């Protein structure tokens, strides 16, 4: 099971800037994910998370490097990689059923209508929208719209789900319920998920691995935090786990200060192909602690 399912190999994204030259969003980005793994990526706005996700989806092309999925280099978008968009991107002229049917019939083009509708119905039921099939997106709340987006993504039986801040536009209560749903569905179906988020608690609740990205331009993947919390964590209990705040503080510390300073402090030492894996609260946390001490020591010495 522990094979490299997705492998991002040295991708870069550069944009030409006005007046000549190029601006590098990120370069030499390496990351691999295993089958059935839930990976979250956290970083400040503008670090290129969405660009990386779009490259993974095939909607954007890297300036260098490749992405390999299931032993094949990706060439453009594919039905194997479903995207859940931040803005849900539902087709407003189609009903809930119509939106899901559109995806199902795109994947299985020779299926007859009843079979397509049956499959669409199954996924509408799965996300808890039974009864709302004939509503149009404009009649739905934000949370319901995103449920349709999730149903549409799942209905094509993708190998990977790519989510770009799927819950950021929702209120806290709806977000919580949808996180539960996504977690349940992913555990039931063994989905491989790559998700962008700004919400640390969301990442800790959902992800197996949390990738920390430094500030752009020239953003780096600083480290991979392995989630030490038990697999069967419940949303209502997760924050009471003794390691919860260890992980949370580690990530917050990164976002508050280290995301700015990481690149400068680790120049020459950071190996983009071999990113430090941190397990806060467990043995390997020492690694991070050591580097913290080193950093503080270095900081003190400069004064």
């Amino acid at each position: 099971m522990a094979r490299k399912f997705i492998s991002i190999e040295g991708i870069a994204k550069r944009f030409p800037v006005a007046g000549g030259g190029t601006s590098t969003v990120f370069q030499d980005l390496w990351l691999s994910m295993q089958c059935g793994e839930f990976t979250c990526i956290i970083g400040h706005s503008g670090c290129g998370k969405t660009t990386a996700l779009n490259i993974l989806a095939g909607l954007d092309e890297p300036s260098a490097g490749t992405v390999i999925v299931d032993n094949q280099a990706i060439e453009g978008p594919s039905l194997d990689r479903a995207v859940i968009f931040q803005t849900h991107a539902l087709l407003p002229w189609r009903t809930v059923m119509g939106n899901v049917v559109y995806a199902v019939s795109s994947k299985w083009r020779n299926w007859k209508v009843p079979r397509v509708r049956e499959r669409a119905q199954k996924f509408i039921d799965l996300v808890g929208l039974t009864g709302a099939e004939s509503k149009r997106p404009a009649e739905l709340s934000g949370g319901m719209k995103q449920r349709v987006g999730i149903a549409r993504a799942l209905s094509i039986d993708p190998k990977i789900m790519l989510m770009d801040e799927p819950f950021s536009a929702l209120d806290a209560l709806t977000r919580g319920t949808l996180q539960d749903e996504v977690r349940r569905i992913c555990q039931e179906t063994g989905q491989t998920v790559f998700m962008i988020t700004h919400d640390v608690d969301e990442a800790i609740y959902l992800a197996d691995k949390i990738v920390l990205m430094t500030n752009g331009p020239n953003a780096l993947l600083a480290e991979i935090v392995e989630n030490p919390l038990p697999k069967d964590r419940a949303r209502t209990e997760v924050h009471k786990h003794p390691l919860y705040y260890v992980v949370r503080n580690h990530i917050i510390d990164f976002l508050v200060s280290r995301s700015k300073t990481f690149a400068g402090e680790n120049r020459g030492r950071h190996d983009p192909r071999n990113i430090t894996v941190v397990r806060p609260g467990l043995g390997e946390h020492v690694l991070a602690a050591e580097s913290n001490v080193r950093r503080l020591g270095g900081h003190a010495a400069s004064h």
Partner: protein
Amino acid sequence: MALSSLTWRAAIVTLALFVAFLIAWHFATQGLAPTQQMDPEYAKLMGATATQGKSAMPGPLDVGTRLWEHICHPFYDNGPNDKGIGIQLAFSIARVLTGYLIAVAVAVPIGFLIGMSQLMSRALDPFVQVLKPISPLAWMPLALYTIRDSSISSIFVIFICSLWPMLINTAFGVTSVRREWLNVAKTLEVGTLRRAFTIILPAAAPTILTGMRISIGIAWLVIVAAEMLVGGTGIGYFVWNEWNNLSITNVIIAILFIGLVGMILDQLLARATRLVTFPE
């Protein structure tokens, strides 16, 4: 309740304005001009304006009486220069619809092409920019010379004047389809043709229909002028013919019908636009 009371109040004001207009019209055409004494034989030649001070402009009662005659017999045909107003309107509407539908068939696909292909957009832009501001009637001599048929020439003029708003609106509608909807199609590996029909067409339909609505309005404006030029049949010819007959009454009635038909055409397209508009 508030809305219906507003509707009623507006209707009352409309009616009051209309009645005031009719009264003003009635008295304005009563004829208070000074009359001259003249030889009775000469007076017969001069007509009512000179002898009784009656205005040549018909009053609302004259127009109303004649209007009723037209409504009772809209389709009579007493030869080339005396046809019912219904027949004339039918000729005009048929010409407008023919030219307009050909324009739809040409403008929508080309608009799609311009909207979907940057190359074609840039390549065709100079033609569109130069051809768009040309008055459609300027094409008339060229059309008459090449087509050698006055009726088809006026259809051509309708075609050329309805083309541009639809072309430009279609291209605009297609280029401004939301990136996220196109991305949905891309991630579902939807082919170009299916994408055009299932994503771009429904997304651009409100903009395309708006272009079609502008076009039908322009086409109806232009047909009157075109038929005045080419003659023969049609409401434009009717107006010109009645002017030559000095029948101001019939000219006024024709103006009224031109307005009514134009309104109906516009409302039909407005209805169609509402059908394809989706709430977001």
